[in-house]
């Protein structure tokens, strides 16, 4: 064993193998990325597409007001997905501050399916201020 470890050839081979394996590791990362073919054309990635839905809404929001947030989580998505959608909404609408609550004057609705105004009004006492399409709505707390 000692003789084996002392052999220069073994040591040289080990050094070159270390270099080769490292190179293969980088190459496999490139190949994996290329073969996955999940490279979207510029501007078509998930986050960019998601935040484009909020472009028109962002122009309508009043400055310096914390707004609420409502989504259809629990019905069509997991809590994790709902959290991700909320965080992405906050990212898209920065610098407006969005709180995950319906206890605000204005509430941002982010729905994956068509919104039925009646259902919302009943459940959360909300009325639609503006429907921006694609599941994005601005809602208002209805006076009791």
């Amino acid at each position, binding site marked *: 064993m000692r003789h084996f*470890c002392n052999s*220069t050839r*073994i*040591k*040289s081979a*080990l*050094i*070159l193998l*270390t*270099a*080769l*394996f*490292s*190179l*293969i*590791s*980088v*190459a*496999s*990362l*490139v190949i994996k*990325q*290329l073969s996955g073919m*999940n*490279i*979207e054309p*510029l501007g078509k*990635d*998930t*986050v*960019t597409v998601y935040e484009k839905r909020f472009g028109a809404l962002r122009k309508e929001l009043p*400055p*310096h007001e*914390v707004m609420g947030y409502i989504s259809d989580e629990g019905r069509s998505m997991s809590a994790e997905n709902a*959290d*991700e959608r909320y*965080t*992405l909404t*906050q*990212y898209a609408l*920065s*610098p407006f*501050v*969005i*709180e995950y609550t319906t206890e605000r004057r204005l509430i941002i609705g982010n729905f994956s399916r068509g919104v039925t105004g009646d259902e919302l009004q009943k459940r959360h006492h909300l009325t639609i201020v503006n429907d921006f399409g694609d599941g994005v709505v601005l809602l208002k707390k209805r006076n009791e």
Partner: protein
Amino acid sequence: MLLLSLFISLLTGFIAIHILCPERRPMKPLIILKGCLAVGLGFGISSCLFSLWLFFYSSSGKVFILVDMIFLIGLTAILFASSSVRKYPMHSEFDPHIDANSKMSRFLSMFFYSAFVLAVGAFILLSLDRPHGGWDAWAIWNMRARFIFRGGDRLDEVFSHFLAFSHPDYPLLLPLSVSRLWKYMSHETVVMPVLLSMLFTFVTVGLLSCSLSLIRSKGQGLLAGLVLLGTSFFIKHGAAQYADVPLGFFFLATLVLFCLHERSLSHNNNLVSLAGITAGLSAWTKNEGILFIVSILAVRLIVIISQKGWRAYLSELRSFLIGLLPVVAIIIYFKIYIAPPNDLVSAQGLIVTSEKLLDLSRYKQVFAAYGKEAIRLGGRIVNVPFLILYLFILRVTIDSRDKIGIANAFIVLCLMLLGYFFVYITSPLDLNMHLSTSLNRLFLQLWPSLLFVYFMVVTSPEQMLSHNKEQENPVSG
């Protein structure tokens, strides 16, 4: 404007380094090393300047560009006026490279440059796939950059308690660097955070490789760079625009600068001052940097007093603090007056923390996670078990001039691991979730520095070949 913003940052970094460490006879690895340090230092200093502008004046307008320019002109004037260029050239004890052009060295160069090009390609492909980066990038760093860029004077909203999920207490080096670049360009683009992450990822490789090329040998530097490039998680994480890669850069830079200081023949502590700046910038990047600064201060106290005595320690401490304190002052101001309390700290109570400290099952759980993660570190093949085998076969060769530098780096890294360990033990979060979502990133922060220490002790390819020649021709030696 993109080029101007980059040029100002990089030149600021380079001049700052050159003021502290002038070099009369620049060697190629030293120039590259300075260039790598300049990237981190430049963006760090620029973000500190921008933070002062933001905290005390206004985030709107472009007057801060004038401040950047004035600071750069001031630095340039100091550079020309500085007598240190004549008095204290950075004259370090670096050996002429043995067999630097051997066949082995040429092979390693070929492998390294191929891997570097491929890694840049992989980074670009990953960034095209996710230009906004991973979760932390858009939920924390880039979101904060957007708040600063889009919000104008509404700075308080950036740190609103409604945004607790995005950890508003996290330091601002990355968000400020991104928003500063956007302000120069007057528009928001995903290219900036991608470019910033790319620079930090690859200058980390450059810094690791050049520092080892300079201190050990060219082959050793190339090999270390290759192992880091072969760590897919490092490249993926860099492309995900997380702060762990820039943080890892500042950890590595600090430890490298201390090692270079030990090799320095100049009787000054300029490299220690530079290490103070990089250590400060680590805490300006992520909260883990605070633990790093404490570890550095503790280890230098023990190592330097035992090796060189109190006087040397106090002199070194003064130089370290000269670099560290300006950055730390900004961090303290940010933590006291702007940021909300840290979620991990504020959720702690003395009784609950004591109970967690006495709970042995938590120790077992964290130990197990540490072991599992340690084995996974590195590439698919060139991982920790592989590197242990490599060390066993190649053996250890430590230059007596590097003993203090290596001991310093090694103990600092051990303290960091210990510190992280107790953060988990006392964590108010669900331990399993906390470990599974963060431990791999904490290890990644330390990975470039661990590789640096590893390749500082393991026999270099050139040393291995020269030992062999000596054994084959004992008379000719």
